[in-house]
């Protein structure tokens, strides 16, 4: 099944993903607090990091929920919160090691990425290709070929005599 994959090196911090997510979920606002995906700007560190739920195989949130409100969507494999059952106790927020569960203060329930039922809007609106919706194997293959490329380039650099340029 497809998951949202994140390449922070491509993220430009435009926050389109947040706008799209907030709007599809709330239908009324693009405010950041209504978005499940969050792009954090770390100015001092010169980094922007988008982060959204990884829909883990063995989710901490699902294991801890005292209401049994967190279930897996059989169609998309997404981990979703049944807002009717959610008491708003926030144990899932304490359990997620990535900080990916948020809280809707008006409805007093926990909220998280649902993969938009299989067509994640954040991915659709990402202008830089930092977000993709793909099978995990595709993501791994891309990463692997990038690593292969880097390794072979480094090795060639080490083998060349000094003074000769490295143009590939």
């Amino acid at each position, binding site marked *: 099944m497809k998951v949202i994959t*994140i390449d*922070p090196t491509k993220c430009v911090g435009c926050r389109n993903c947040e706008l799209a997510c907030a709007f599809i979920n709330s239908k009324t606002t693009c405010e950041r607090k209504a978005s499940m995906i969050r792009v*954090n700007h*770390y100015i*001092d*560190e010169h*980094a922007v*990091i988008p*982060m959204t739920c990884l829909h883990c195989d063995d989710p901490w949130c699902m*294991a*801890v929920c*005292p*209401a*049994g409100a967190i*279930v897996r969507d059989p169609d998309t494999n997404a981990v979703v919160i049944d807002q*009717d*059952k959610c*008491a*708003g*106790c*926030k*144990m899932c*927020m*304490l*359990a*997620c*090691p*990535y*900080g*990916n*569960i*948020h*809280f809707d*203060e008006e409805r*007093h329930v926990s909220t998280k990425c649902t993969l938009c039922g299989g067509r994640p809007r954040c991915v659709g609106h990402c202008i830089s290709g930092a977000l993709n919706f793909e099978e995990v194997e595709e993501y791994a293959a891309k990463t692997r070929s990038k690593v292969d490329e880097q390794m072979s380039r480094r090795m060639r650099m080490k083998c060349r005599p000094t003074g000769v340029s490295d143009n590939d």
Partner: protein
Amino acid sequence: MESIVIIGNGAAGLAAIKSFRKYDPKTPITVISKEGGAAYSRVLLPYVLRGKLTYDKLFIPYAEKFKELGVEYIESEVLSLDDKNNFISLSDGRQLTYDKLLIASGSHALLPPVEGIDQPGVHNMWTRKDLDALTEEFKTKKEAIVVGSGFVSLQAAWAARSHGIRVSIVEIADRIMPLVLDIRGSTIMTEQMAKLGVDVHTSAVTERVEKAPDGRFSLVLKDKDTIPADFIIVGAGVRANIEFLKDSGVVFNRTVPVDDHMRTNVADIYAAGDAAAGPSAFGDEHVTHALWPTAVEMGTIAGANMAGEDTSYSGSLNMNVTEMFGVTVASMGKFNDSDIDNYYVYGDETGKGYCKLCYKNDLIVGICLIGTPETVGMMGKIRPIIRRRLAVDCPPAKLDAFLSLRFFER
């Protein structure tokens, strides 16, 4: 294996079933429940009492499916355990043999040894029956006293206050929530509660409870004014349900000590949850955290090991969270001055509320919060750092950034 028996249908028992079935779909499981009824979480009782959740939402949906997975339920009480011959004796007269046994019988709420405390109109908030009784009281009564100021007591107080009932808190210690907040946290909470019309009496020792013929209560305090009420809620601690171990070979104190595999001193007998004392994330060997997440973790480990796996528990990290009196209150690990040697309080400009990050020997050991819900998410990110006792070389103000950047580091 012929049969697995689990005593208790709470967090630890349910988690054990889930975990056991992952590895062993066949061996029949029998669950003994003294309380009976469909499985539910005590965590949700205050939310139902307050009216946030409807009554039907109390019950845990996935537990209903267990019956189709070879799990049988018996509503009865375990009276004794014969560990030499591998069977338990039930109050309905039956005896059940087991190949492996899990003691997940949980705990019950106490009434402190105070004269007059054990009478109608004085409630705990621990079981579904308590919820039903308090829901009745809430319909007509106007004034309540809550004895004790832990998480459970104050959630009950908040539920009452939300119904417009006048509430007084009576706490023996010199501050409220002594086990789950630090001194400053207690002060903030007391102020917040005062704003919402709750009277807080600390250093208050209850001498006796008197009830007039018209049903009005008077709580008589030592060296303080007597407090009147229509009903009383007591949240003064819990005791493990392990009386049935009395003449057995299982070693027990207030709870049953277990190793990092949830094993008791007797082969094939495991224990988990409120009834057990297992390793803590800080390296203690036997600690009882009567908390839902701990019970889930311990039950999960026990279930896997009962199915023949060899998993080890990294230890329980105490964590609590709730919303009450208009603020989110949460704590994790160690946060009291006597347990830490350094701390950092996030500034007001960060919009977190009162959030204190606690250190000991340069390691982050805990956090306490009275503030905004979103900060609970940050606590979740820090939880693994505390758990694994990792040193984090960054100033506390930059901790969130540091952790986020680490996720994608190559």
